[in-house]
Each structure stands twice: as structure tokens, then as C-alpha cells.
């Protein structure tokens, strides 16, 4: 088997939240330690796209930033292209060494407007990583910027001199992609990179990202909340809930045979165009109407148990570890004491459980 491009081991990231003025206050119920990422491990292989899905507050963006070491994780280790970023960070001259090691790892953000400097021209934005990498020759740099813009479907003459505000959302995102490519990365971390774009523009940018993946041999870590979108680009997916991975595996496998109740719930909630053939969704509240627990004082054991229709006493007592679920294919891991049986239809209503009824009766 090939070496992974990136290995993250047992990443933990925590933030201290205080009340007003930095004082822990009794009135603010959220003051304390936010356990944003709690022991997440994952691998990304060369040329592969791994997607992390989860809802707001699941820690998926924090996970991406911990991998980048911006800021570095509380504990755990990230090995990228055979170098441990974590030990580079800890060593005395970490500043430059970490930057050099991290150059092959670039990020694209959600909001195309705020992630570009409003005062800089497109050419300068895309050229900046080249300057940082020590390309001093202006003519050479201009040539490279021109190539990069062409790669993302823009051109130097038409767009090079413009500012971000003179571009559409899709064009801005193309500039952000060109900027990421300037450093000749091996891995691109895309944090909700196409979420704010209109359907037709989104399709164009997704096709661009896919084209670059094959032509440049890139790997992607794709962070998104839209499961249909993730399905389009992923080789493997990882489902995250309140800072922990619930389920991970080959995308086809996870989508066809979800084993974790949370994955089932997510898939069931996706509004899909295929629904047009099946008729309108039935009215009425979803059986799992429970609310997401707080990451400040996450539930003991399995963090999903407060919302889970399958939860039992064991779920509160023991933290489930990620492991192969009986009946699942190779590489399909689930962290659940009572996984959904393989082959069961992927609907929440198919799960059935006493816990749900009690929760919804309010």
C-alpha cells in the first residue's frame, strides 16, 4: 500500500471560553472549555479526496485548521509528506521550518470576498505566494501568474488588474484557487469552498477542482455540510459529530450502507431532487427532534446519545471507538455500540426506538 500523504493521529483541540472581560462568569452557561476536536485520526492518500461532513459546531473547520497547525492542536500528531508538523512546531526554529513543510498544503475558504485582499489586484494576490517562495524575477513571476490564471479559467489581460469587488463570486473563488495552486501544493484543504455559490457557478467550480485533481495529481481535504455535494467529489468520507468521528469509509459504501445513526439521520434530511418522483415529504416533526448537546460539557460516552434513537445505558457509560462494524466492507469504520444493521433502508423512521418517542413527546 502507498504511504499516506497526510496522517493525523489523535488530534485534540480545545478552546477556553470566558465571560465578558475574560472572567469566567456564572451567568454565561457556555463558559468553560470547548472540546472542539477530541481525538480525531485520519489519513489522506496521494490523489485522493477525503471529505469531512457534519453540522455547524461539529468541529470540522477546527479539524482542518489543526491539521494546518493554524493554530497547532493541543495534542496529537500530524505527519505530512513524511515530516511531523507537530515536532517541527515544537522545535526551537519552528517558524521557518513549519512554513516550509506546510507550503505544499494550501487552503481555500468559504467566503470568496473576504478571503481576498480588497485593495490588491488579482495578479498581485496570485503572485504573493511566489514572492514568499523566493521567486524574485518579476517577468518570471508574471509569466507564472498568467499560467495559473489560465489554469483556473481566467486570463491575465481580462482579470489580472481587477480587484475582488469587480469580480463575481465564482471568479473570486477561481482567484483563491489560483492563489492556492501558486505554491504547487500536494494537498488542498477546501473549507466549504463552494457552499456560497449559485448552483450553475458551483458546478463550474466543482468541475474545475476535479479537473485540477487529475491534471496536477492533487489531494483534497474537503470540508462541507452538503452531503450531495460531498458525494460528487469524494473517494472517502468522514462523518463528524461534536468533535468526534462517527463513521468513516469509502464514500459509496458509507452512502449506500450508513451504519451510524447520525449518518442515517443526515442522509435522510438531505433535500433531494429525486424526491420529485416520490411525491412530497410527509409533514410532521422528525422523530429525532433532540438538540445538539454543547461542546463545552459534551455528554459522557457517545456524544450523539442525547439525540440517538438507538441509545441505551451502555452508550452513556462507554465511549465507542472507531472500528469495523460487523457486516461492513473493509475500511468502513463506525464508532457505535449499536450500529444500524447493514442493508437496512437508510431512513430514520426505519430505525425505530423508544428513546425517540420520549424525546419528541414534548
Amino acid at each position: 500500500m502507498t504511504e499516506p500523504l497526510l496522517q493525523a493521529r489523535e488530534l485534540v483541540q480545545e478552546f477556553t471560553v470566558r465571560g465578558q472581560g475574560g472572567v469566567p462568569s456564572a451567568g454565561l452557561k457556555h463558559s468553560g472549555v470547548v472540546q472542539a476536536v477530541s481525538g480525531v485520526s485520519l489519513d489522506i492518500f496521494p490523489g485522493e479526496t477525503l471529505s469531512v461532513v457534519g453540522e455547524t459546531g461539529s468541529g470540522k473547520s477546527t479539524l482542518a485548521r489543526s491539521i494546518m497547525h493554524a493554530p497547532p492542536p493541543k495534542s496529537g500528531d500530524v505527519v505530512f509528506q513524511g515530516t511531523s508538523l507537530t515536532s517541527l512546531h515544537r522545535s526551537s526554529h519552528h517558524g521557518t521550518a513549519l512554513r516550509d513543510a506546510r507550503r505544499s498544503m494550501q487552503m481555500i475558504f468559504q467566503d470568496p470576498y473576504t478571503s481576498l485582499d480588497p485593495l490588491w489586484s488579482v495578479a498581485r494576490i496570485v503572485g504573493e505566494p511566489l514572492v514568499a517562495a523566493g521567486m524574485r524575477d518579476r517577468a518570471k513571476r508574471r509569466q507564472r501568474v498568467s499560467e495559473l490564471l489560465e489554469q483556473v479559467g481566467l486570463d491575465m489581460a481580462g482579470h489580472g488588474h481587477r480587484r475582488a469587488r469587480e469580480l463575481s463570486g465564482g471568479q473570486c473563488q477561481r482567484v483563491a484557487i489560483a492563489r492556492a495552486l501558486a505554491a504547487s501544493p500536494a494537498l488542498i484543504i477546501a473549507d466549504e469552498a463552494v457552499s456560497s455559490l449559485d448552483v450553475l457557478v458551483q458546478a463550474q467550480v466543482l468541475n474545475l477542482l476535479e479537473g485540477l485533481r487529475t491534471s496536477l495529481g492533487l489531494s483534497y481535504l474537503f470540508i462541507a455540510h452538503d452531503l450531495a455535494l460531498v458525494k460528487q467529489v469524494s473517494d472517502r468520507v468522514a462523518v463528524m459529530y461534536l468533535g468526534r468521528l462517527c463513521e468513516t469509509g469509502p464514500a459509496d459504501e458509507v452512502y449506500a450502507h450508513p451504519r451510524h445513526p447520525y449518518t442515517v439521520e443526515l442522509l435522510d434530511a438531505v433535500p433531494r431532487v429525486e424526491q420529485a418522483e416520490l411525491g412530497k415529504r410527509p409533514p410532521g416533526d422528525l422523530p429525532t427532534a433532540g438538540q445538539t448537546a454543547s461542546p463545552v460539557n459534551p455528554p459522557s460516552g457517545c456524544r450523539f446519545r442525547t439525540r440517538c434513537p438507538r441509545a441505551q445505558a451502555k452508550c452513556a457509560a462507554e465511549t465507542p471507538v472507531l472500528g469495523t462494524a460487523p457486516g461492513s466492507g473493509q475500511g468502513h469504520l463506525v464508532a457505535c455500540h449499536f450500529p444500524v444493521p447493514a442493508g437496512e433502508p437508510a431512513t430514520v423512521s426505519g430505525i425505530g426506538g423508544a428513546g425517540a418517542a420520549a424525546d419528541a413527546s414534548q
Partner: protein
Amino acid sequence: MTAGTAGGPAGAAAPVLEVRDLSVRFRPRGGNLVHAASGLSYTVAAGRTVAIIGESGSGKTASSRAIMGLLPRSAQVSGSVLLSGTELIGLSPRALRRHRGRDVAMIFQDPARSLNPTMKVGPQIAEAIRAHKKVGRAEARERVIELFKLVRLSAPEQRYDEYPHQFSGGMRQRVMIAMALSCSPKLLIADEATTALDVTTQAQIMRLLAELQEQLGMAILMISHDLGLAASYADEVVVMYAGRTVERASVRELFGNVRMPYTSALLGAVPRLDRAAHTPLPVVPGRPPDLSAEAAGCPFAPRCPRAADKCAERRPAFDEHKPGHWYACWYPLPDGPRAVEAGLANTGPSATGGAR
């Protein structure tokens, strides 16, 4: 309200909302006239949900705000909006205020910004009730708590005295729905009401709305960019492009028998759970046109793969080409049931055939 009716809208019920030839124009300071919406016509019947679908800048929000009379005074609104037979366009702000909230209510994308952060949540809704009905404070409070129960807020008595920041996004949207329902409106306009929410919360809110609709019989006008959402929760879909309606049909007819190339392009570009990974999405090049210059022909012609000379010269009329299916196109896609793009197994050609 029978779910999944094939064919046209419920013909028998009198429309709650009837929009005829509605146009909205803005003149920015020192700029050219912007045609945000031009010649829209559609109806919404009681107990039905109509989804207005379009990309940003297609005029879907501007036109729905025109219905509510919420546009700035500089906006030029023409055409007719009948709410249960009453003309809303041209009403004085004062007369309009009487309808707004009572007969027609609106929920917005950002529930946090729609609530007053310095005021307790319950009294905000009580205030809305007291603005329209002659009721005492205690009675209004009773009614609010009743509404909180209706939208399934837990511990409604306690929630009454909490501030907006103490609610999660989904809970805030429930509060907004409670406020919108406080005077039992005939029409509820939901403008991207679930866009900012997580998928699971979105599903909860959408199903709650459908249930309340069934109970109260109100009409819902749902404004969204999400075709999947329309397919799952609407009865009828109106597709907008560059300020114009380009196609309108029941959900089943629209998704199963697309005629207008723009709608087809939209449907093709949506990532779907049943698509194979790493397959290129079909895309159309270009961008929507500038709305300050009114084109003579079809607004989609410059991007349309089926366009011919005629399309750039003359605008196709938005006509009902068969019962319940309107579209504006000179060279529509062939008629006949087909699965929605992407090689979906054709599950029952009878689905679209039954209505006619």
C-alpha cells in the same frame, strides 16, 4: 391536501394570492434603471406550497418583498397583487400595515437579525398580536405560549421570558414561525427560511411548516435557490431567471418533464446522492445578464445550447402550453416524461401522464 398530486395545481380552490404582471424596477443614484423583476404572474391556492426558484439576482426576493410592500420607496412597482381578492399594489402604507402580519406574514433567512436582541422573545410576539387584535396583555401572553407549543418549543412558559441569544438557530426560526402565525395569516412567505440552518434542522422546520399548513390551511410561498428543497416540500415550482418567470409547473411535471433549457441546466448542475463520484457536472457557460439593459430576446439565449437567431430577437411569451405547465421558450426540450437527468432509472412513466 393530497401529497404528490400529479399534473396541474388544484384548480377548484380560489387562489389566496394572485400575482399578475408584477414588475419591480430600481433606479440606483446616477445609474440606469434596473429591471429586478418583469411581468411575473402566478397564483397560490389555500393549503398549497409554491416554490419560487432562482439564482441570486434572479428577482425572487425583490418580487416577494413587493408583495409585502417591503421595498424602499425608490422602487417602482407595477402590476397587480391580489390577496384574497384585495389589491395590495398602490395601497397606502397604513392600509398595507393592516394586511401585513394579519393576512400575510413573512419569515426570513436570518432569524437572529429578525428579532430584537434587547427584548425578551415572548413580549415581542405579544406586541405583534396586540398590534392587530384588541386583546389584553395576559390574553396575548396566553396566545404566545399556545403558539410556542404549536411550533414545539420546549418549556414554552420559561422560553417566554428568555432573550433571542439564548436560542439556537433552529429554535429562533421556530420563534419566527410562531410570530408569523400569531394572527393566523392566509399566506406565509418563507424567504430562504432554512438556508442558514443545518440539514437536520432544515428538515425539522420544513416538516413543521407542512404540518402547520395542514392544520391551518394556509398557503405557503417558499423562496429558495435549492431545487432539492422544492422537490421535497412544494406542490408547484416557479423558476425565475434574470427577473422573469421562465417555467412553472407542478413538482412532478417540472422535474419529470422539463421543457425550458435553463431549468434543465439547473437540474443537471445540482449535485445528487445518486450520481457517481468524479463525473463532471453538466454546466452552461457564462453568467446571468445585466438587468439594467433589457434584452429584446430570451434572457437565457446567450447561454442556451438550443438557442437560434430567433431567440435573440424576440422574447418568447410565458404561456400555458399544456394544462398546468407554463414556460417561455421558442425551442423547448421535447415533451414526454423523462427521469431527472443523470441517468436516473425511469421509475414510472405514468407519473406525469395521469393528469391529462
